[in-house]
Each structure stands twice: as C-alpha cells, then as structure tokens.
C-alpha cells in the first residue's frame, strides 16, 4: 500500500509499505477513505517529539471502511464506514472506566504520562497513522463509530480530532453565562473553540493570531472579535484595555508547542528543541485572564519542560484545566450540533490533496502558504 513515511525532520515521502495485519483479537484493519493533517503533526514533522522513528506513518485524523476484523470484534463488520477517534484506548482500564479515554493505561508501553495516539511517535505508543491506504485500529469495539448516513465525510473526519478538541478546549474553560473568552490561535482547533464558546453562553469572544487570513475566518466562522498580535505592542496590555482592565474570564490556548510571538521561546523550542514547546500562547493566556479566572489548554506540548509563567498563575489564583481530548465522549453532543448547523466543520477545510502529494501539503501547511487552514488527504485506495 501507499503511505506517508517520516524520514527525519522536515523530510517525509510516500512509500510502499505492507498492509497492516491483525495483531490482537480486537483489532480492525481500516481502508482509509479520507485523512487530515493536524497542526500537531507539524510538531512531528519539525522533529520536536522524542522517539519519532524513521518509517513511521503519521495521521491521527481519518475515516474509512472496515477491511478486516479480529476474532473478538463484535460491534463492527467488514464494509462498515467508520470514523475513528484519534485516541487509541482500551475502554476498560482505571482511566477509561471513568471516561478519561485519552489517558488510557493499556495501550502505550513507552510512556505513562500520555495514552495512545495514531501516528504520533513512540512516545504515544508506536502506532502507525492514517495518512496511508490502510491502518491498524486496536480495540475496534471501543473507539470507531459508524458514520451516520446524514453526515458528510469532511465533517466526519474533522470530528475525529479538530472539532472535538476545539469544543473540548472551550469546555475546559468552564465558561459561564456572559463570560469574556479569549482564544489564542485561529487554526482549526481555535476556530471551533471560539464557535463553541458561544454555544456555552459566552458574552464576548476574542480570537488572537498573527495570520490575517485566519482571523478573517474567525470573524466569519466563529462570529468573533479578532486581534492580530503583531499590530499591538503588548498583547497582555491590549487584553486588559479591552476588558476595562479586568482581564478575560476565560482564556483558551489553542496553539500549543509552536506558538509564535516570542523569538526567544521559538528559538529554544521549535528550533533548538531545548523546551517541550514554546509556551508563548499559554503565558499570554495566564497573563490575559482575570484573577480567579480559568485557562483551558487544548494545544499540545512535548514531554520536556516548558518555560511557563507559573508564578503568575499561582498568584492570580487561576484554574488551569487541560487534557488530550477524550474524543468519543464528545461525539453524541457534537453530532447534534453538526446536524443542527451550530457547528459546520467543513467550512474550515481549505485544501484537499491526493496522498501522493502529501510532502507538498506538509510544506504548504507548515509554512502557512496559500491561506492554508486545514488539509484533507485522499489515499488512492479510497
């Protein structure tokens, strides 16, 4: 089969690989119909995630058709069209049994601090991802869900991570009626977080980024006020001024490890790998929110330490809430929102490419060319 393959930082190509095989009785093999490139895939592409091995296939956002099932699979059959959460999880460990699917303890030998994720290095379990024609999906009775007839493929693939994570980011903020919510990052997750903040009763939503075309999308898609942070001298002072010096009630970090805006943070993280990630957006969130406020972290960081302004967070009495998204738990409610038109995921898609062109797509997405927000990938076998 054809698959995207990692060859080292900034180097990927499309190669022939063996079709994955059933390795556990509850495995399924899925023929991928549509995949996506996530902003967090760029952390791998840039060589930021420890134990990203040569030959690994990325891709934790994908939908497809069941091609083969293991002997203990009861809930799926060959031919079913399924969407697969980005979490690999067992459904039965201490954490899964309490709904913390993204913190599963039974699927990742390489680390206990993170669960399993498709195509996201050995630090999250060493699974191949869905930017390929076929992919192994463990615990087929737990993770995948049959795509509802009414749901568009583009919406389904975005629900496997970006939409669920954006909504979850807003949930982490614990938004209350009338709250002022500031969202850092106007990528797919930030756009959905901003849109979701309204669903939770926000009174004002402000989105911060440095890419004007994404801020324009934030105004259209998320009905948000916007700030291009390159246009102000100090983001935190701006946030205080625009909230009459109170600060926002809730701030959401929808950027994560490669946040821009502070050259020292960028150099020591993205370029020199001395930090698990550049916490520029997180620090702005901590300093922009009011005392007693809440910071929700939906952006992903690496396992090495990051220079976070913890003193300010402590002194301000902030609540910091964060996790990888337990995707399937979010789905029933999100399906309703998509069906009712409250969330329209496919509006954030800007590019759709064949798998054979994925090296170009990674560069385009990484360098933010051609007004790129979200790239979908179509394998040949689809």
């Amino acid at each position, binding site marked *: 089969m054809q698959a995207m393959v990692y*060859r*080292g930082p*900034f*180097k990927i*190509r499309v190669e022939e690989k063996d079709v994955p095989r059933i*390795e*556990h*009785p*509850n495995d399924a093999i899925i023929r991928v119909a549509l995949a996506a490139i996530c902003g967090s895939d760029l952390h791998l592409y840039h060589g930021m995630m420890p134990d990203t*091995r*040569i030959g*690994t296939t990325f891709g934790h956002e994908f939908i497809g058709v069941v091609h083969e099932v293991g002997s203990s699979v009861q809930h799926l059959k060959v031919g079913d069209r399924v969407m697969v959460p980005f979490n690999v999880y*067992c*459904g*039965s460990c201490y954490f899964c*049994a*309490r709904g*913390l699917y993204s913190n599963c*303890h*039974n*699927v*990742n*030998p*390489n*680390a*206990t*601090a993170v669960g*399993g994720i498709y195509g996201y290095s*050995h*630090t999250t379990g*060493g699974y191949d991802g869905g930017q390929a024609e076929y992919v192994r999906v463990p*615990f087929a*009775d737990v993770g995948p869900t049959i795509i509802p007839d009414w749901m568009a493929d583009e919406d389904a693939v975005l629900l496997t991570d970006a939409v669920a994570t954006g909504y*979850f980011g807003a*949930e982490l903020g*614990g938004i209350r*009626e009338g709250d002022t919510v500031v969202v850092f990052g106007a990528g797919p997750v930030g756009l959905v977080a901003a849109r979701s903040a*309204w669903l*939770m*009763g926000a*009174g004002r939503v402000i989105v911060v980024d*440095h890419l*004007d075309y994404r801020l324009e999308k934030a105004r259209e898609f998320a*009905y948000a006020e916007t700030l291009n*942070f390159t246009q102000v001298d100090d983001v935190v002072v701006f946030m205080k001024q625009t*909230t*009459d010096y109170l600060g926002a009630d809730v701030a959401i970090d929808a950027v994560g490890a490669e946040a821009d805006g502070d050259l020292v943070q960028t150099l020591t993280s993205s*370029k020199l790998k001395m930090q698990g990630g550049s916490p520029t957006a997180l620090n702005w969130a901590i300093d922009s929110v009011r005392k007693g406020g809440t910071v929700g972290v939906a952006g992903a960081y690496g396992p090495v330490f990051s220079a976070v302004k913890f003193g300010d967070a402590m002194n301000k009495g902030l609540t910091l809430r964060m996790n990888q998204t337990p995707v399937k738990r979010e789905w*029933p*409610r999100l399906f309703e929102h998509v069906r009712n*038109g409250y969330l329209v995921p496919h509006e954030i898609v800007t590019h759709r490419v064949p798998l054979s062109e994925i*090296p*170009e797509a990674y*560069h*385009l997405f990484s*360098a*933010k*060319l051609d*007004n*790129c927000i979200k790239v979908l990938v179509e394998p040949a076998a689809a």
Partner: protein
Amino acid sequence: MTEVHRPYVADKPAQRETNEQLRARIPGWGVDLDPQDRPGYPREQPGIETGAHWELPERQEETYPRERSIEHGMLPPVFGTVAPLHGVSGAIKRYAYARYSEGRLAHWLLLIVGDRVEAFGAHVRSFATLHPDLPVKVGAVVAAEVHGEGLRSRFGQRRSDVKHQWLDPVVVLAPWVVSGWVGYRLTKAVLGRR
C-alpha cells in the same frame, strides 16, 4: 476626575450584547449553557459505557523485546509495533527506557539523540538505494512554494513567523554540512597517514 476602571469596584461589567441579541446573531448561542449538557462534565464519570467486553484485554503477542517506560508495572496488553528499535539508535533508546523514568530530562534527551542518530544512519543508507534522502525535498518544496505563492503568502502580510522561518533551512542543512565536514576531515586524516 480620574476614570475608575472595572476591577477597582465590585460590579461585574455589563454585557455588550444582551442574551437575546446574541441568540439572534449566533446560531445555537447558549445551547450548552448548562454544564450538564457538556459531555466533558463531570470530568470523571465512573461506570461510563465504553463498548469494552473484557475486564483486562487479551495480551497482544510480544514478537520482539518491546521497550517500555519503567513507570509501567507491566507491559501493557496492546502496543504499536511499527519500526522496532535497531542498531546504535536502538541501543541509546533502550538505555533511556531502561534507566530513566519519564520524569528525568535524561530520558527525553537520550530519545532525541537516538532520533538524530537513527535519521543520520537512514540518510547514509538511503544513498545506496534508488531513493536517496536529499537534504531538502526540493521537488515538494518548490511545488508548494509555487502553487502556494510563497512570496505573496509571506511578505506584505502581518506575519510573525517570517522573522524566523529562514532558520528552518539552517536547522535542516546544518547536520549535513557538519557531517560532510567531519567526513572530509576524517578521510583526509586517514589518507594523510599513508
């Protein structure tokens, strides 16, 4: 008279728009106002139905010695099997896993060193194949820059990242230049002894 701003007095700021105005302007405004309607609430939900029909999953066969964090009490029953550890990089990573917990910086730094050693070996070996790894995937980059209008996308925009994007080629090319220089010096030293 000095203007008194919000936090210096007790009142909450007035909402800029009323709930009715927001509901009229934004489809679905407030439908998840009640935390009970949010699927992530409460954070832990003991007894949640997951679809699992086992107490402990059956164990996947361990076909090669699978490295694991020393913070694990046992090898978890299911794991990925892509790209097993091998060679020098594998030895470095095995040591990182066997010796240091995830709480130790040495654990992660050794894994990153192992990554770079593995990449170096893979690049060298690739030159003996029909698909050598070039320092830059020229075709893909050129195609993306042309189709994506690299100049227009970057310049004349109010972007923060153009200040440091020029460093990316340096990050990519520096190991090649250093390796080439070391190789040259070593070759010269060996030949010079003859």
